[in-house]
Structure formats: structure tokens, C-alpha cells
């Protein structure tokens, strides 16, 4: 099973399973009819066919019902997407930069890391950029994906809901080491997260002061 670690997974998974359910129903129906007809009306059992040119009520039925179902599917996908595309105003901002072939995450206090550490139960907004070619920020456990396009800033948001370590993939082909442009997303409690950022900030400052003293 795939981890469910953000607020988006609930609606996305519901929509997914709804469409899968409808699809399986129709696939079984069509295949069942096909197999039944092939056996029941085989040339041996039914040497003489009956000509039926069509049936308008039937045509209308199997046009209207799929259309209604398709509209429902569309609507589910759209309303989930509206949620995904409207980040809360007070979301915590992280700048994500993709380049061949690694990710950099920059936090509001200036700290940069190459794994994505996130506080638990917080709304997170990522600002996604690229330094060279197209990449794509993809965290399957959050059901989040957004391309990193040079010259643009794309955003995505989600709310972390479960502690743990998850995969972050580059999902847009970017050359030789595309499949190695992977890192980890680590969701930890807020206190640990703040402590981590402070420690990293101090390390950064002491490294910088060492540089200036040299």
C-alpha cells in the first residue's frame, strides 16, 4: 500500500477508487457480455444470425449514462484540484530548487538542506524553481506533483499529517541521472523541527564566522 501522509490523500484516493470502481464494473459488464455472446451465439449453437441494425433507445442510454458518470468524475477531480491549488495564506513557505541532478530546500531562516524536513500538522507551501532544465517535484505519499520549469515559480501546498520518512522523486525526465534525483521527505514533530532548524542555523553561522576569521 502507498502511504497516506497529507491532507490531500483523502479526496484524491476517494476519487481514484470511485473511478476504478466504475471502470471495473463496466469492464466486467462488457467483457462478460462479450464472452457470453461468443459462447451462446457461437456458429455451432447458432448457425443462423439475426440482423439487428440498431436500437435508438439503447444508443441514447449508453450515451447518456457514461456522460453523467464522466461528468461526476470530472467534478470530483476538479473540486479536489481546487483544494490543491489554493494554499492557505498562513502556510509555511519553503523554496525548492531542482537542478541536474539534485534538490535544494531553503527555509525561511536561510538554512539550506538537501533533504526535505517538515514539521508535523502544518500547512506547507513549496515554491518550486529550476536552475537548468525541467524537473518535477513529486512526493507520492502526499499525492503532490508539480513541475520545476526554468524561468518560473510554481507552487504546491499540502498539510503534513503523519510522522515518517517518505520518497521525493524527480518526475520529469532531466537527463542522464534523472533516476538518481531522489531524496527523502522527513516529517517530524514541530519542536524537533524547530530545534533542527536552529541547530542548522548555528552550524551555518559558525561556518560563516570561521570563513571570515580566516
Amino acid at each position, binding site marked *: 500500500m502507498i502511504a497516506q501522509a497529507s491532507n490531500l490523500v483523502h479526496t484524491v484516493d476517494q476519487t481514484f477508487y470511485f473511478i476504478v470502481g466504475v471502470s471495473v464494473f463496466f469492464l466486467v459488464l462488457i467483457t462478460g457480455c462479450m464472452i457470453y455472446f461468443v459462447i451462446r451465439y457461437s456458429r455451432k449453437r447458432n448457425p443462423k444470425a439475426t*440482423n439487428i441494425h440498431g436500437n435508438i433507445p439503447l444508443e441514447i442510454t449508453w450515451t447518456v449514462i457514461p456522460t453523467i458518470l464522466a461528468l461526476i*468524475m470530472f467534478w470530483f477531480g476538479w473540486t479536489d484540484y481546487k483544494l490543491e491549488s489554493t494554499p492557505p495564506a498562513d502556510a509555511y513557505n519553503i523554496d525548492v530548487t531542482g537542478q541536474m541532478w539534485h534538490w535544494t530546500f531553503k527555509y525561511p531562516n536561510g538554512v539550506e538542506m538537501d533533504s526535505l524536513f517538515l514539521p508535523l500538522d502544518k500547512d506547507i507551501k513549496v515554491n518550486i524553481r529550476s536552475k537548468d532544465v525541467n524537473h518535477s517535484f513529486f512526493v507520492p505519499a502526499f499525492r503532490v506533483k508539480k513541475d520545476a520549469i526554468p524561468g518560473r515559480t510554481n507552487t504546491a501546498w499540502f498539510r503534513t499529517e503523519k510522522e515518517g520518512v517518505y520518497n521525493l522523486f524527480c518526475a520529469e525526465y532531466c537527463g542522464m541521472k534523472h533516476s538518481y534525483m531522489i531524496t527523502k521527505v522527513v516529517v517530524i514533530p514541530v519542536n524537533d523541527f524547530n530545534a533542527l532548524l536552529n541547530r542548522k542555523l548555528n552550524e551555518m553561522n559558525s561556518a560563516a564566522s570561521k570563513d571570515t576569521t580566516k
Partner: protein
Amino acid sequence: MDNDAATAANDHVSFLKYKGKYKGIRSWILSTDHKRIGILYLMALLCFFALGVTFGFLIRLELLTPGKTIVEPQVYNEFFTLHGVIMIFLFVIPGLPAVFGNFFLPIMLGAKDVAFPRLNLLSWWLYVTGGVLIIASILMPGGPADTGWTFYIPYSVRTTTNVIITGSAAFLLGFSSILTGLNFITTIHRLRAPGMGWFKMPLFAWSLYATAWIQVLATPIIGITLLLIIVERVFGVGLFDPALGGDPILFQHLFWIYSHPAVYIMIVPAMGVISEIIPVFARRTIFGYKFIAFSSIGIALFGSLVWAHHMFAVGMSDTGQFIFSFLTFMVAIPSAIKVFNWTATLYKGSISLDPPMLFALAFIFLFSIGGFTGLIQGALSVDIHLTDTSFIVGHFHYVMFGGTGMGIFAALHYWLPKMFGRMYNLKRAKVAFWIIFVGFNTLYFPMFVMGWLGMPRRYYDYLPEYTIYHQISTVGSWILITGMIIMFTNLIQGLRKGKVVTERNIWGGETLEWTIETPPTHDNFDKIPMISTPPYEYKQNETEELPEEIIH
């Protein structure tokens, strides 16, 4: 002018033995006979198909284990680029129209040739030149393109591989496709036999008509896009490359404005083939002729307006996302109508499961899975999770291979005996079919599962949790290839040494190709037929007694 004796000698000689202006190989590669051109395409297509399958096999082999299995990442990236470019531009797009459209469209319409026979030959030459360029790009210094068949900018302007050569090849192939489309539109408008109104046309002709319009209207856009890339590279005009102030998303739009309708260029003719085969092997009239005919046109229209559903993760406006997702769901409806009508055609038929019918039924099943997984990706929020994962790879292989591929295999088994006057081994064809069917599903179904679990596509290496799915899939590729080897060996042996067939109507079809000699003569018809009834009438079902052949 030819003297009368020579003309008489050529009368009632099959087109295979017909003596024209040229002899030997030139009587083929310079022939303007639509049937010979169809066979030229068939030969070339099968060579490219073998090459494409080889690259596909190598991709799967590399993915058998995490890390390096057979090649380095750079070579793997070239493999999947070549696999995509060869399969799409050299096999699936030209596939049915160029081979079976060329051969059978004029015959089905009651014509002696296409409207522009010389243009038809030019199309083939452009096609071959494009194919040779792609092969050349493999051998030339720099190596084949490693951009994927989508050539996304900026990567495609950064890489040092032979992208321009591969792109130029696509440009030439596009021209070949446009000319074929133009030829078919004119042929269908001008060369139908007397009495053949639009609704007396076979459904394969309808599907080629819809396809031809897409070829003519959409293909120029990919050509223009390629010219713009050259303008950008040579004159430094910033169109697509952000380093020059251009917009890489513009490239993606232009690319998909062609390449999405191209998907329908690939699938609609296969739908036409299925619409031919099902009534013949069910021995009854087709259910909902007009609905099947108009749904082809509906697919062509809607299909031209859904291109940006390939780009739901690039950061389009909400309005764009809304419209493209909505239209994507709408384009599913005409396809559903077709599937329902085909299934209804089986009802109260008299069905025989000969090899063409088996492939046609497999088409319905596999294409339905391809279509349903398309619905899953049509939903915006779900697509954002699934796009650029192996779910997409599974989806388009179910549509393109499970759909068009099975359509081509069905057409081969249905029409080859008519084209060459020899029959393959029916039993072996059925064995091959079942191996292909099992191998196909073993190969592509795991891709849905791992895609949902987050496995990105175009990955040389993968995390250990995806290993099992990759291994099942790779084993599937071996089964599938075994089946295809049996199938093609059987077909080729059939053509060379199979039982000679002179019977005109091999399968009991009612379209015009079954009224002429097997194999057809150079002029197809001694006398142009007069058409008074729609195709697929099966009048014998309405008479009291059973036709004699069935009683005995």
C-alpha cells in the same frame, strides 16, 4: 501506347505478377499501384517494428534488477527515446492507413487507385528517408537523441546528442503523413463507386476519413514547431529556451497540439478495422452503423481539443485545467459508444473465433482497459499524482499496443490472405494469439500498480520496493515477444508456403474487396461496381433457409 497484346496478357494477372514499365525491384519501388505501395509500407514497417521491439526488450531487460543490469544510464535513455520515436513515428502513426488503407481503401470504395498515385509513392519515399535518418542518428557521432520522444525544451537544446537529425526525420515523416491524408480525403470524396453514398461506405473508410483530416490539420503544427526550433538555434530568437527569454511551456503546448491528435491518428483506423472484422465473423449486420461512423468524427473533433491534459502538472491556469479536464472526459464518450456497439453486434450473431476475430475481441478488452485508465488520469487531482509515473506508460501501451497493435495484428490475419493469395496456419495463429494476450497483460498491468505506488517513468534505476513489479513486467515482455515471434513466423511461412487461396470471399465478408479476385488484379475491378445497398447487410439471415455452406 501499350499494344493490345501486352494489355491482354496483363488482364487477369494478379497485381503481384503484373508487368508494368519497370522490372525487378524497380517494379516495386517506382510503382504507383496503391497495392504495391501498401506492401512497400508493410515491409518497411515490419523492419522498424522489429527494431522498436528490440529496444523495448532491452529497456525491460535493463529494468530486471535495480542498478545496472546491462547498460549505463546514458544508453538506457537512448533506448527509450529510440523505442518511442521508432514505434510512434515509424510504426503506429503510418501503420494502418499506409499499409491497409493504401491497399484496401480504393478497393472498398470501388476505385482503381487512390486519387494521386504519384503523390502516394512520394509519401512512401519520404517515409523511408525519415526512417533512414533515424537509423543514421544512431550511428553518427554524438549518438541518438536521449530526450525521450517528446523532445522537451530546455533539455533538448542542452544535450549534445543528435536531436536535430531525429527532429528532421520527424519533420519528413510528418510530410509523408500529410500527403497520405490529403490523398485519402480526395479519394473518399471523388472516387466512390456510383451509388456509394456516404452512408454506404464501409466503416474502415469512415475511420480513415476522420484520421486523414487530423493528419492534414494537426501535422503541420509539429513541422512549424521544428522550424521555430531551428530559428531559435540559428538566429538566437528566444522562443522556447528560457536562457534566451523564451518559454519552455510554449513548446509543450505546440508539441501536444500535434501529438495528442496524433494519438487519434493511431487509434481511429484500428477502430475501423475492428468495425470491419466483427460483423464478418458474427455473420450479421453491424449494430449502430451511423453511431460508429459519427463517433469517429466526434473523436477527431474532441480529440483535437484535449492536448493540455498532458500538462496538468506544469502550472497552467485554473481555467485551462478546468477546460482540458472537462474535454478529456467528453472525448471518452464516442469511444464508449463504439465499444457498446461492437459488443451489441455480437448479440444473436453466428460467431466463429478465427484469428482475426480473436485479435478484434482482444482489442475491445485491452482498449477498454486503456480507456478506463484514461478516465482515471482525466480527473485533475488524480492525474497530478499519476502523471509521469509508469501508470501513464501502462495506459498508453494498453491503448497503443493493446488497441492499435492488436488492430494491426487483426488486420494482418484478416487481409494478408487476400493480398497474397496464401493462407497461414490457423491453429498456430490462435496459439500465438493466446501467448501474446497473456504476455501483454503480464508486461503492462504491473505498470498500473507501481505507477499508483509512485514509480516515476523514464527511470534507469529504481528503489527496491518496486522490484517485484518490474520483474513481473520483464518476464511478461519475454512471453509477449515469444508470442510475436510465433505469430510472425507463421504469417511469413504462410505467405511463402501456405495453402494457395483463390476463393474470392475468404471469410464471408460483404465489402467490395471480397468480390474481386484473390489476389486482386492490377485494376482491381474489371467493371466498376454499382452500389445499391449499405455494407454488412447479410441478407441470407433474412431468408427462410440456411445458406448451403452452413448446412453441409
